[in-house]
């Protein structure tokens, strides 16, 4: 069976010369969830930006059997949804409902269908009541939920979550973890939050200096790199 994601020899150098990725090999199976652990600046975010075609490094990326290329970009972006670390950047429309409907509208759905799907996605994350509110009136936890709804509404097969619990207070972190654990999609979770990794993922990979240096059970990786807070 073709894997959900298969990456071979991915390298990327930023314009300022910094070599962020140096030959990454990675595989994600359907329905599987993997945590991406590793120090700041080790290439985790740069790596996930490639999976949606937002960065274009050397190497090969296949998403559900589709080779990453300009021709496949639209189809790949339908399969892979990224929830960015800073919700502020993701919620760019004037109201919550318009923001969530942004994806479906740009997939070619009619306004009525898009609004329908958006309301459904908002209900999934428990934010249906806030549909008409402006994003800047929301709390950090609410913004994150709306950002997730904006991705879920596109019905992706794979969810990428970049530091989803940053900026959230402990109750909001718990609520978000429970919400994410209930979603059926395959997930790639970039995080420093070991508790979140344990709750969502069975496997973890460890990034260091732009390559994956280890892969295995979450517990195994956490122990090997002494990655727990306590």
């Amino acid at each position: 069976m073709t894997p959900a994601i298969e990456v071979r020899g991915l390298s990327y150098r930023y314009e300022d010369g910094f070599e962020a990725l140096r030959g990454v090999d990675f595989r994600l199976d359907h329905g599987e969830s993997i945590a991406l652990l590793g120090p700041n600046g080790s290439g985790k975010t740069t790596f996930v930006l490639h999976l949606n075609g937002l960065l274009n490094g050397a190497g090969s990326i296949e998403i559900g059997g589709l080779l990453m290329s300009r021709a496949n970009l639209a189809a790949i972006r339908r399969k892979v949804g990224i929830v960015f670390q800073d919700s502020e950047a993701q919620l760019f429309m004037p109201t919550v409902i318009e923001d969530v409907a942004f994806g479906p509208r740009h997939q070619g759905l009619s306004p009525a269908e898009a609004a329908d799907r958006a309301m459904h996605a908002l209900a999934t994350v428990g934010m249906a009541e806030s549909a008409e509110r402006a994003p800047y009136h929301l709390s950090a936890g609410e913004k994150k939920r709306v950002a997730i709804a904006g991705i879920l509404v596109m019905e992706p097969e794979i969810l990428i979550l970049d530091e989803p619990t940053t900026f959230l207070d402990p109750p909001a972190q718990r609520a978000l973890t429970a919400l994410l654990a209930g979603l059926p999609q395959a997930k790639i979770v970039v995080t420093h939050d070991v508790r979140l990794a344990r709750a969502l993922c069975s496997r973890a990979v460890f990034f260091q200096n732009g390559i994956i240096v280890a892969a295995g059970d979450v517990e195994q990786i956490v122990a090997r790199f002494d990655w727990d807070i306590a």
Partner: protein
Amino acid sequence: MHHVVLDEWSRRSSALHRFDPRAKFIVLVVFLVVVATTQRALASLSAALLLLLLACFAIAQIPLAAALRRAALVLPFIAAFAAACWFAGDPDRALALALKSYLSALAVLLLMATTPLPQLLAGLESLLLPRFLLTVAQFLYRYLFVISEEAQHMRIASLARAPRRRGSGMRRGLKEAGGALAVLFARSHARAEEIHRAMLARGFAGHFQTLTRRRFTGLDALVVATASLAVILLRLGAEGLAK
């Protein structure tokens, strides 16, 4: 935050809030043209129009004093021109300039305070205003708050490290403000890039698809006709009385 207050006003519900944004915009344009082209009987016309505007604010349930104060924000900008007229020996003209500007600002404020900006921009788009300009306005509106928050964070951070020094002159102040502005610009640029990525990730291909389109109803047409006529008749009446 200034624009947050305006945003809150614009989301209240009153008869004025419910009219189509395009209807309100057309009436505003008529109002502005009538005010701008008035030569005679300006004082009595201004009084009548001011009463009309105040009545509208009252119907829209917007605090009058706060609205009057906000509209006064334009006055410093036209003060220079009014002063120039005054010193050139034309005090009437100076006064007319101030009156017209204030009334115009109040009328624009009424539109803004009774129409959520997204709806207003969507309405303007269907009146064939350039889409690009409206998109810029929409983003400006959305991120004004974020950028001003960033500026406040930077100010607090700088105060925390360097509490106000005694005798730090205007020159140093300007220098620091310049530096802060450069950083703010760089941050805004970085944020713009993030936003663009988030848009691309959700299928944006250079063309905004929005959610709602309003229908311009017969009632809206009636509003345009009566309100425009009222403004024009007020002017004709004021000029007739002055003869």
